[in-house]
């Protein structure tokens, strides 16, 4: 019997990147379904449009950079960016807004840095922050969940919204999100804020609709964790810090309260951020200790900006700020190699 000489790698299987990216896409489904259930077809159209724009712009960027288009398109990373940006945008925004966001995400934040694996900032969050700062009005108008409106917008109204933004939708369909209600709170007790804000009054813990969307993303994230797509460190670091800080500043529901822990954990982009953004292997840190620090930093910044800053939600800003700090954190959390002593810092000179 002739023994063939076979060199490594011995494990064969589907392209790992493609597999990971497609699993992430599938894991957004529970959250997306909750969004569609509560807010009508708008979020679905957002995700579809953003994905199409993302794939088209990725192909264009690859063509300009003279890279194999089919090979890189199949890795699914552009699709994930498009889906995540589409999920983060408010429903019924005009189509050009989605295009501008995806352009900044794919072309500026990803391909100018050399494409997948080199981008220091999370592309979807760059797109979101650019839109939030440049077009604050359409980016802060959320439609009310189905519990509060007679009917969610129909498909015709959704297409009208695409062309004209929320101005094209019937009156009384947009309203303050739960975090907006707390942002605008001027010295009311937490119980009174809950009673006065329609969206909080109609919900169980953190506002009608929004809490179920967040629970959907939590379910998707738990599935990804079970599939070992990422480790638990970054999401747990972020959620634990947010829980701890919001419990500390809850203040028994007084007029100075920053909102209950449930409000902070189950509203805004908390769960989407914790399981789909903070866990990005490219833009976060690499060691387990580094990931805990990274997640905790995001949680801290989210709470501070939500409570004392100008913006009602802060996941995108917090993620970008920690992306900025990630290489530095990596520098100081290099794990010890087995059998070696702790590596010397590069800042200590040998002379």
């Amino acid at each position, binding site marked *: 019997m002739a023994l063939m000489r076979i060199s490594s790698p011995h494990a064969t299987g589907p392209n790992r990147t493609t597999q990971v990216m497609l699993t992430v896409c599938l894991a957004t489904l529970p959250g997306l379904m909750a969004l569609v259930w509560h807010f009508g077809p708008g979020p679905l159209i957002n995700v579809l449009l953003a994905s199409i724009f993302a794939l088209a712009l990725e192909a264009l960027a690859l063509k300009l950079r003279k890279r194999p288009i089919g090979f890189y398109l199949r890795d699914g990373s552009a699709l994930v960016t498009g889906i995540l940006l589409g999920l983060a945008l408010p429903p019924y925004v005009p189509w050009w807004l989605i295009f501008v966001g995806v352009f900044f995400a794919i072309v500026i934040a990803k391909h100018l840095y050399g494409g997948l694996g080199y981008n220091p900032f999370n592309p979807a969050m760059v797109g979101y*922050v650019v839109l939030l700062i440049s077009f604050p009005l359409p980016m802060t108008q959320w439609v009310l969940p189905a519990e509060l409106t007679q009917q969610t917008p129909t498909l015709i109204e959704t297409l009208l919204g695409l062309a004209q933004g929320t101005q094209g939708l019937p009156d009384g369909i947009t309203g303050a999100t739960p975090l907006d209600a707390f942002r605008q709170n001027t010295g009311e007790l937490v119980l009174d804020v809950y009673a006065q804000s329609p969206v909080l009054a109609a919900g169980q813990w953190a506002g009608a609709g929004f809490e179920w969307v967040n629970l959907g993303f939590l379910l998707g994230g738990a599935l990804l964790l079970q599939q070992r797509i990422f480790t638990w460190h970054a999401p747990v670091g972020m959620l634990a810090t947010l829980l701890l800080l919001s419990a500390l500043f809850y203040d028994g529901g007084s007029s100075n309260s920053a909102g209950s822990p449930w409000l902070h954990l189950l509203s805004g982009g908390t769960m989407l951020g914790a399981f789909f953004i903070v866990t990005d292997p490219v833009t976060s840190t690499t060691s387990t200790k580094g990931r805990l620090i990274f997640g905790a930093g995001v949680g801290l910044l989210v709470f501070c900006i939500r409570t004392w800053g100008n913006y009602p939600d802060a996941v995108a800003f917090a993620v970008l700020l920690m992306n900025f700090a990630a290489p530095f954190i990596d520098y100081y959390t290099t794990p010890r190699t087995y059998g070696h002593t702790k590596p010397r810092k590069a800042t200590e000179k040998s002379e």
Partner: protein
Amino acid sequence: MTEFAVIMLSTILVNNFVLVQFLGLCPFMGVSNKLETAIGMGGATTFVLTLASIASYLVNTWVLMPLGLEYLRTIAFILVIAVVVQFAKMFIEKTSPLLYRVLGVFLPLITTNCAVLGVALQNTSHAHNFVESSLYGFGAALGFSLVLVLFSAMRERLAAADVPVPFQGAAIGMITAGLMSLAFMGFGGLV
């Protein structure tokens, strides 16, 4: 006590001199290629900025104002800064010859760091008292050092990235700084 904390938070994060006020961009782009030089530069700038804001406050209050020479403020401050930088240069040369060699030409260039003059001039326009002036200078320097060090760690990673040729080097550095400035807008309203 709260007002001092507000000054520190404001100068380090909310009104960061580099990423929000766009002062001191030359050393920010010039000395951020390696982490160790960035840490040294951050330390040296902190030393100079704090001392320069104290010195310029004293010169402004005890020399320029009594003599009615406020129109000479800019020139007087530049002179004060140059003296402080020369002092810092001699100090570093004696205490850490290695850092002195690493910093090289950038140490005298702190003189032309617009953030240093900017802090001194803003101290007079905000009518800060002695403690506020020194805290303002110290906070500005800490904010400058923070973003310089973080940016240099990121640029070390960018050096290995497959950046398209037209964007290599300073171009991608400027784009990164722009994205970071975008992220710093999230701090708006904190103070």
